[in-house]
Each structure stands twice: as structure tokens, then as C-alpha cells.
């Protein structure tokens, strides 16, 4: 059995027949062209799959594609506008906030949410805000620096 749904991803609308059990993260990754969203676990712990669903960050492995019917999704590929990196992307680059890069798309999307809800976070608030995203490479310190720098840049 499949269900017809329509989801807009990074500004492009996709009408697809999907199995009701299909996770949003698989829907996105299987569209062809949007594999930036990563799958790091099967227990909703790692945050690698974080995307914006109607502007709010969510772990796309915790949501069925059918639940996102009619929604607008922004993934890491949709963050840069007209070739201009988002201040968060720029800051992760400047502050060496990534090594292998696997957690990075989710980390940036989660940071996006953090700054949306708290534009001037303390280091402590950044650390708490990102506690749902795992990174095995960086020890988080440069990620905290990056989010701090992005917050400053975005306040301007």
C-alpha cells in the first residue's frame, strides 16, 4: 500500500507515492540529490538527520513521511542562499567546527534552531542546546565556538 503525499524540499515540491512506514529521512535521501541529511542511528539519539520542518528543527528519523505531507522541509542543501553560505556554515568553517563532517549537517540545523529560539546564547546554553546531537570527532568545543560566532554575525 502506498499513500500519495506532497512535500516541498528546499523550495521544490515533490509529489510521491510512499509506503506509510517510510521515515521522512529516507524520503528526503531517496529523492535524488539531497543526501546531505545523514542517518547516524536508529534510536533518535544522534541528531545527524536534523532538518527544518516548517521552520522548526526536528530529527527527520522520528517522523514519517506521511506526517510531513503538505509541509516545507529545509535541509542542509537549502541553507545557503544564491551561493552565499549561511552564517552558521561560514562559522563552522571558520572555527574548525567539523572534522569528518558526518554530524555536521544535523549539527548546523540544530544550531539553527538554537539561534532561532535563543539568538544570544551563552556557551552553556549552546552546550545544552546541542546535547541532542552527537559528534565523535570534535569534542564539541569548536562547534560551541562556531555557534557563538554565528550568533554574533547574525545579530549584525
Amino acid at each position, binding site marked *: 500500500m502506498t499513500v500519495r503525499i506532497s512535500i516541498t524540499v528546499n523550495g521544490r515540491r515533490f509529489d510521491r507515492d510512499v509506503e506509510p512506514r517510510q521515515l521522512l529521512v529516507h524520503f528526503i535521501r531517496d529523492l535524488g540529490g539531497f543526501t546531505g541529511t545523514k542517518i547516524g542511528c536508529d534510536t533518535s539519539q544522534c541528531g545527524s538527520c536534523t532538518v527544518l520542518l516548517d521552520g522548526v528543527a526536528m530529527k527527520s528519523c522520528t517522523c514519517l513521511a506521511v506526517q510531513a505531507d503538505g509541509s516545507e522541509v529545509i535541509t542542509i542543501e537549502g541553507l545557503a542562499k544564491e551561493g552565499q553560505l549561511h552564517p552558521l556554515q561560514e562559522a563552522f*568553517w571558520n572555527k574548525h567546527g567539523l572534522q569528518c*563532517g558526518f554530524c555536521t549537517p544535523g549539527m548546523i540545523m540544530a544550531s539553527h534552531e538554537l539561534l532561532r529560539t535563543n539568538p544570544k546564547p551563552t556557551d552553556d546554553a549552546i552546550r545544552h542546546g546541542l546535547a541532542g546531537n552527537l559528534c565523535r570527532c570534535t569534542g564539541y568545543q569548536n562547534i560551541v565556538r562556531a555557534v557563538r560566532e554565528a550568533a554574533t554575525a547574525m545579530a549584525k
Partner: protein
Amino acid sequence: MSSRIFGSGIRRREDPRLITGAATYTDDLTMPGMLHAVMLRSPHAYAKITRIDTSRARQAPGVIASYTGADVNLNAMPCAWLPPNSSLKIAKYPTVAVDTVRYVGDIVAVVVAETPEQGYDALELIDVEYRPLNASLDPQKSCAPGAPQLHEDVPSNLAFQWTVSGGDVDAAFKNADVVVKERIVQQRLIPNAMEPRAALAKWAGASGELTLWNTTQNPHILRYLTSVVTGIAEDKLRVIAPEVGGGFGCKIPAYPGEFLAIFASRKLNRPVKWTETRSENYQATTHGRDHVQEVELAATKDGTILGIRARSWSAMGAYLSTAAPGIPTILHGLMLSGVYNVPAIKEDVYGVYTNATPVEAYRGAGRPEATFIIERMVDKLAAELTMDPVAVRQKNLIPKFENGHSVATGLTYDSGDYPGILKKLLDHVNYEALRKEQAAARTAGKIMGIGVGTYVEICGLGPSQVASAVGFQGGLWESAIVRVHPTGKVNVFIGASPHGQGEETTFAQLVAAEIGVAVDDVKVVHGDTETTPMGWGTYGSRTTAVGGAALVLATRKVKEKAKLLAAHLLEAAVEDMDYDDGKFFVKGSPDKAKTIQDIALMANLSWNMPPGMEGGLEASMFYDPPNFTYPFGAHLAVVEIDGDTGDVTLKRYVAIDDCGPQINPIIVEGQVHGGVVQGIGQALWEEAVYDANGQLVTGSMLDYALPRADRLPNIEVLSTVTPSPHHPLGLKGIGEAGTIASTATVYNAVMDALAPMGVKTLRMPFTPERVWRAIHAGGKSGGN
């Protein structure tokens, strides 16, 4: 600019693709006609398979094929590190279990389907009957009489027995005023690279060629092993490591998964992808550590160390993974004396099969365990003699040396200044004031602890002759090709395979610094056996130490040729030529010059070459290091413990490391951060727990406590610079340093905090429950 580019913290050129989602990891690949392999894994730790029937699964929608152990005709999984004089017994390790399963996660069948979901559905339809057997998990008990035997041809489950010794240990203990003892449990850890493992195999039937995309740290080793296991000739095999999402050792070995993808692709003549789930990763991607050690240290009453004697039982898991036997032996035992003068050492190491996931290298691989032993014992000795742990260290540290220091185990450290780095640490934190602060905190009823850890590691693996002497079935040199194009742009091809460490950037910096091209004019190519020269891979903090040396020497060959050509073009004698910042000129007349770009163009055109000179501007270097490199450091941790809950908070962490000159200090700092946090994870949170039946209790990220951002302080990172005397640029390596130091450092801090309560020993990780119980039991705590 060239002189400034070395040592400059420029942004990484890897990052634009990674921060935009454009990077391609193995699981991101798709191709027309691609099928998906999924694995049925054993739910039992040890059992006989009495019946297996895949006929229902074969009928399921989308299923193309299924295979059991009887169908798969691949050779057994190879073990490639055979420590000499160790009575090594390599038990047969089939890609798919035939009649016996030996750990939860052992593969019993493979299903290949049009989609992964169809594959998973079909797994439910495979009928397997098992006759469960008693499992054996503890390495000490597994080799004791009466333990279940895992492999027919391995009595007592003893995979090997290896001894390191140097100096007169018996005399050391006879002459000792004090002997301190400890039983140490180096708990089993799960590497948790954030990218699960994946493989995509594409067989081209017409040409008999196979391409494998794989999450590997060493594509060339994998090609070699793939040819051994599948029988496909090496020249017909291409292994590509695309973007790789972290490794930490668990992506060194070859696994059944990739070989089964190859097997299926060949059978079906279609591309076959396999991607593990995180649950499978926990069960079947290699683990690390899992040793039990009984250690004694002999000393005089003024705190001078006389000797160490130890026995270590190292669980290997159900089978020997690719490099596993070398880790608790060579990479561990030879480093037992650490930064100290220890005249006598003996350790007996028993490698034991257990009904658990095979172990492999895990960041630091053997060296964190060695550092832990000596750093723990030094603190025990200090406690026994009521000396300050720093004073005991200062008494025993090897004095500064610049070119070689031999230790009792037979190694020759390259260079080090251990007293210097410890002093820098003490000055930085104002150690005396910190101890006073602690005394005041204690008076105020707080539980505060200070831990110091000093370390030296062996890395830059390593001289190939030594590799041979210690049974490593490969070479340990590295390779680089430097190719200067007509426009003066440079491609570098390296045999190593970075996966997050940033060598696309730092290696470009090396080339830019050597021949004066812009760093943006250098592109580093790696990870593809078809385009890069043979190399042994990225692990053991060796890529910069060995591969970087190969690259510098290859670049210098290019420069040498460029100089000859410049002399020819300027009609000057070679002896009269000078070089500065990308320009070759006649001594004394800097305007009679040719740039490296001028020369690249002429070399590639070859219109006007000196007699006998070949065209092109390219050089390659296969560099075999004369010795290992020995980075070192001194770390300090401050912890506070909540007496009501047992919760340990890390208040402060200082890391001072010496990896020689730093190509890019920002990248070095990042390596230290990540390494330190992984080691902290072992001390405070992480442990792979099996129950008595061999079920992995911590089988998901929910149950296995990984370090998270909110539980960590900012780490203070400092450094000293002691060049290696044998590396062309003095570089040593920094990938594993943090992990090697931090577990012992944090452990010592927690034990220091608990000392007033009479707690003398406690098992890692320091979970709140364990710490709370220890506080409440005081000196009567069960310890390890």
C-alpha cells in the same frame, strides 16, 4: 608566503563540501540497477545452527537472492598481525557462519533485495533453529579450566600468549621497599564513528573487474585483503574510500559485509550496496580495549621506581580481527614504562577468545592501556608513600633528550622533554595554589579531585623492518606523488586515506611551503587505489608523520629538478643557483629568475631541456621511516563530585601536548579536543556491557553513554615543540595523543577526590551509581 604557510591556522579546504551537504559518503551513492544486501545476525552469543531455511524469504516481494554459510564460497577472513613467539592460534573466521555462531551479531544469512525495506522484511521469513551453548565473556575466566571452548582447534580459548621483558624484574622486586598492586579493568568500548559502515560493490562481468566503495581508513590494505578473500586479482580490483565519517580504528579492518556485497554483486551481476544500521554497528563493528590487568610496581621508599610486573588478559572477541593481536601486545607492552626511567619490566599478555564482538584498534590502540597502567601505578605509589603525585613523577621522569633514549622494553624514543612539559603544566595551572584551593574546598565539605597524567606515545607507524619483526603482515611506509601541471598547479596523490583529520589542507600547506606555490594551487587526492600510489593507510597517528615525510621528500625531488632546469634556462651553473619563495635565481642577481610556474611550463613542454633530462615535473617518494615518532604531553583534570548522587563533573581540563612543529595549529587543537573527549568518555561514561548470556546490554546510543556537549568543560590546549630528529620536518603526529592521556588523567582526578573517603580503587567508567556506592562503602568498596 611560502615561509608563512607552514604553521598557519588556515581554514580547511575539505569543509565547503561538508558544510553544504555536497560531500558523498558511501551510503549516499546510488547507481542504476543497484540492489541492497541485508544481514541476518545471530541472536545468540554461542550456539549451533541446527537448521536454516531461507525458502520463504526467497519468495518475498523484491527479494532477488539469499545466501547462507553453505552458499558462500569466500575464503576465511584474514588476520594480518601475527606477533612472533606467541603460539598464535588463528581460528577460522568465516564471512557467514556455517554451523556455529560465536557472538550476538555473527552473520548467519544474507538477503539481497530491490530495497532495504524489502530485505529487512524478508529477514523475518528466514527460519533458523539454534541449539544455544554456554557463552564465555570474561577474558580471565575464558582461559581458565572448565570454560566453554569456542573453537575446536584452540584449547583454553588461548589465541596467543606474548611476553615483553627487559631488565631484571625479580631483582627489582627483591630490592623494593614498597610494592603497590592494582587490578585494572580496561572496559570494552564501542568506537561509534558517526558514519555507520557501508559498502557498495560493482562487478563488471565483461571485464572481470570489481569496484568497491567502502568506509575504510586504508583502501590499499583493503584491496589486498579483498583479493585474498574473493580471489579477484588485485589489478582488477579498485577500492575507493569516498568521504569517510570517522574511523577511530574500527574502519581499519576488513569485515564480512563488504565481501558479501562483492560476492552478491558477482553472482547477480548488479551493483550491491550494504549499509549497517546503528544497532548492527554496535553488535558487529569492532570494539576496543577489554583487558583485565594485574599490575605490580616496585619502588624504593623515596619514590624511585624499580620495576613493573604485569599480567594482562585481553579479550579478542569471537574471532581475530585484521590487526587485533598486535594491539594488546606490540602497541601496548613496549610502552609500559611511559615517560619514566623504569629499569625492569615484564608483562605477560594472554589473548583470549570470548563470545563477543571482535576487538580491533580503537583510538590509541594499546597505548592508552599502557599509559593507564603506569600513570595509575605512579599515583598509587604516591598515595602509599604519602607523596604528591607530581613529586613522584618528577623524581622518575626521563631527563630531556634530543636524539634517542633507549628504554627497558627495547624501544628508542626519538626526542622528548618530559620535565619541561610537566613544568609548563604546573606553572599554567599554578599547581600549588590549586592544591590549596582543593584543601579549602574539602574543608568546606566539597569533594574535589585533581589528576595529573603524563604520557609518551609511539606513533608514526613505522619502520617496515620493525613491522616485519613484530609480525605485522604489511609494510608501514607511505607514498606520495607530486605532479606539477603546465600552469603550475599541483596535484598530490597520497597512499594514506584521511577521514576527517584535514590532510587535504595540511598537505597542501606542506607543498606550498616547500616550493612556493599558493596553497590554493595544490590539490590533494586520496582514497582511490586506481589513482593513488600504494600506501598503508590512516591510523596510528601516521599520516603526517610518515605520509607527510613522503610528501615533503617528493616535493624536494621536484624542487631539485626544477633547480636544474632553472639553471639551464638561465644559463648558469647549478652551484650558482639560489631559491627563495617559489623563485630560482642566480646568486646575487635575484632578477635573473625563473618561477616554479615558469619551470613547470617548460618542463611540461620540454622545448628546451638540459641534455638527458626527462619531460614533465613530477616526483614520487616511498618513505620508510627510520624510527617511530614519540609525541608526549602532560595533562591535568579537576573534578567535583556530588556526594548525594555520585555524579562526577569535570570542572577543568588542561592538555599540553608536544607533536613537534605544527603545520596547522587549528587542526592540531581540533585533534586534541576530540581525542581528549574520547578518553574522558572512557573514564566517566562509556562501557560495552554484556550480560552473562552474551547479550549486548548497551546495544544502542540510548544505552551506551557517549560524551555529549553539555557534560564537558572547555578544554585548555597548549603545546611545546620538540622536533623529531629523524622526520624531515621534525613532525610527530597528534591524532591519538588526547585519548592516550585523558583517561588516566581523569581517572586519577576522581580517585584523588575520593581518597579522603578511603576509596583506593574503583572500576571505570565512573557512573554516578558506582561512585555513590564507593563513597558510601568508603575503604570497604569492592573496587575493581
